[in-house]
């Protein structure tokens, strides 16, 4: 070991400076409370501060759907493009065009591997876009499909992907009406990236959004969670794990129509993709400034998904799905909502997993199967497998 430097890394200096700012604020505002509560308040203030991207470069965490992604979106994109239509940051934007109400969404698909048990990137591209439109209460109608292809990518693979998209579009009742193709040099694009945009018509009077969640509302998930994310992890082939798990990718427009028909008072729905169910619960808590309490033993998880998650040290609540929705409905309508979902093949295992409440606004709590409680916070980035 050599020199004994005592230099302070830049990011630490910044963190300490922020600490001083927050402390100063606190001294002005804080009522007398017991010490632990003071600290909790302090954390709350820190969390509510204006988001700032500290990193100089984009890292993989920024793409994971967790805290880093949210900070990036708010600090960079929302900040630059700010307008009332963008602010809600829902899965699709709700626009008034001519006399009609339209939902518009966009997504990019960069999954690797391209083909996996249960589907391929083409299925994800169509279903994912259809779902983003559906959960806003729109009838999905038209999609665009832009392809970025890597030099050397087999045409046969492209044909397979496109065929999947055709079948998925037919199943969902949508049409691909425009597109684009670009080719980039070998080494880029992982074979094939797909970008989509989707347009749907909002015919109901229904205005959905997570900010409308209210204390007493029930939170429902349409089926077992984590199937897609675990499938992809296993399909990457690095793990020497075999399991009968396949992606849950599916178009949810039929399921959504059934739910909205039975429970027109549905407050919000979200498509549980990257970041998993835990991320959506946090989005609800934050947007509506309410507390969320869910029960671990009510959350459906397939045995194999649980086994794989235990092996890897990952929590299924943060693992992506591609054919599941989370719905917030008035408490009195919970039973009808579940019945409506279960009446559809994709909602066979739908269940109420918890409720919205007044206490602890902004915080998601979980009652463990064991009987204790813990907080389910947003992760910074992807759930990482742990050895410890």
């Amino acid at each position: 070991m050599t020199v004994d430097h005592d230099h302070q890394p830049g990011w630490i200096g910044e963190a300490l400076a922020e600490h001083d700012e927050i402390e100063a604020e606190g001294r002005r505002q804080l009522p007398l409370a017991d010490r632990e509560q003071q600290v909790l308040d302090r954390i709350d203030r820190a969390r509510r501060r204006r988001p700032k991207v500290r990193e100089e470069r984009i890292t993989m965490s920024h793409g994971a759907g967790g805290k880093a992604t949210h900070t990036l979106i708010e600090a960079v994109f929302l900040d630059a493009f700010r307008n009332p239509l963008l602010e809600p940051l829902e899965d699709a934007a709700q626009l008034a065009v001519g006399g009609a109400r339209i939902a518009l969404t966009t997504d990019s698909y960069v999954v690797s591997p391209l083909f996996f048990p249960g589907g391929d990137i083409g299925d994800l591209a169509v279903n994912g876009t259809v779902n983003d439109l559906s959960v806003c209460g729109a009838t999905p109608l038209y999609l665009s499909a832009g392809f970025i292809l890597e030099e050397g990518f087999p045409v046969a693979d492209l044909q397979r992907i496109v065929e999947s998209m055709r079948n998925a579009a037919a199943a969902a009742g949508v049409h691909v009406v425009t597109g684009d193709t670009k080719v980039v040099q070998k080494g880029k694009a992982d074979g094939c990236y797909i970008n989509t945009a989707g347009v749907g018509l909002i015919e109901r009077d229904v205005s959905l959004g997570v900010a409308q969640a209210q204390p007493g509302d029930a939170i429902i998930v349409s089926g077992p969670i984590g199937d897609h994310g675990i499938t992809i992890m296993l399909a990457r082939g690095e793990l020497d794990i075999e399991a009968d798990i396949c992606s849950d990718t599916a178009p949810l427009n039929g399921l959504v129509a059934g739910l909205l028909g039975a429970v027109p008072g549905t407050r919000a729905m979200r498509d549980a993709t990257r970041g998993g169910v835990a991320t959506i619960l946090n989005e609800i808590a934050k947007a509506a400034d309410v507390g969320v309490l869910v029960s671990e033993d009510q959350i459906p998880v397939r045995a194999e998904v649980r086994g794989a998650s235990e092996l890897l040290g990952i929590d299924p609540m943060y693992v992506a799905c591609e054919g599941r929705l989370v719905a917030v409905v008035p408490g009195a309508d919970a039973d009808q909502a579940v019945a409506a979902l279960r009446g559809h093949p994709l909602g066979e295992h739908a269940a109420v997993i918890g409720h919205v409440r007044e206490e602890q606004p902004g915080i998601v709590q979980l009652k463990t199967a064991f009987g204790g409680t813990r907080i389910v916070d947003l992760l910074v980035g992807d759930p990482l497998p742990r050895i410890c």
Partner: protein
Amino acid sequence: MRFVDEFRDADKAHALAAKIAALCEPGRQYKLMEVCGGHTHTIYKHGLEDYLPESVTLVHGPGCPVCVIPMGRVDDAIHLASQPDVIMTSFGDMMRVPGSGGSFFDANAEGTNIRMVYSPLDSLKIAKQNPDKQVVFMAIGFETTAPSTAMTMLRAAAQGLTNFSVFCNHVTIIPAIKAILDSPDLRLDGFIGPGHVSTVIGCRPYEFIARDYGKPVVVAGFEPLDILQSIYMLMVQLSQGRSEIENQYSRVVPWDGNVVALKAIGETMELRPYFEWRGLGFISHSALQVREKYAAMDAERLFQVPGVRVADPKACQCGEVLKGVLKPWECKVFGTACTPETPIGTCMVSPEGACAAYYNFGRMNRTRVAEAEVARS
């Protein structure tokens, strides 16, 4: 899941909680330390503290081999990864730990090739697939994980691999426990002993704790009932004035440990004279390095490692949190300067660290499980 679900049965938990409460002497406070990060994780994940009476507090110890790695060593790892034609392999736990200039994820954004693996054996696969690259495995963990690194090295040697090496950051648990026991402000009554480390080293190494310091130790499993039962067993010892080593995790932990594993470690590694533990300072004979015999697989010999020491900022109070003197929220910078995204010290660095676990899981006024309350009255 067998051997898991049975030990997560809530009904039995109420029974154990009642028994624990019944053993509390009125007016006495009990502080029990769980040494191991995995235990901290289970405690928070299942909300176990809700089952404990007010007078029993759990103190989260330094058994997080990720957290105790000083920033300087993370910098050293990134330096290694930045060498030409190096692929570094690392467990997921390390990917977000920040060094002076950022974490492994940040380093990848700057151009290093640090890949996440699930087993040290994956490094060998990568080495074979990339004969023109040097694969350096970032080896971390206590005695639980060291045998796996050792076996991987032996396998590499047997296969004649020349492009694989290890950056060894394995640490040993006993010196850390001793450092805690020797600290003047120690206030602990007993220890929930490491579970998986004990499958390798057995239970004998803990005998000095009972014999020389008079504190009971119960080696515990990782399911919620294992931990509750272990706390119960500690409380029984304390109520009877005993201090002994007991093995609650006997279904997995052999009293004499795993001789094959210990031999593998002994063949490939040896103790360093001293090693810096973030939050605890320098501890002698507390970490492992690669033996001379396997020099060709020792990244520290193959490459020049800067070895610059980066001290934690003065504001950091991890040392006191680790020893149970301070609770996480009592640290002045907890939650403001020091958060999981900007961890200033070891306790916030990995999800098992006392502060991170509290921040992520435990941040609320605890609601005691009703039955435990009834049982006490």
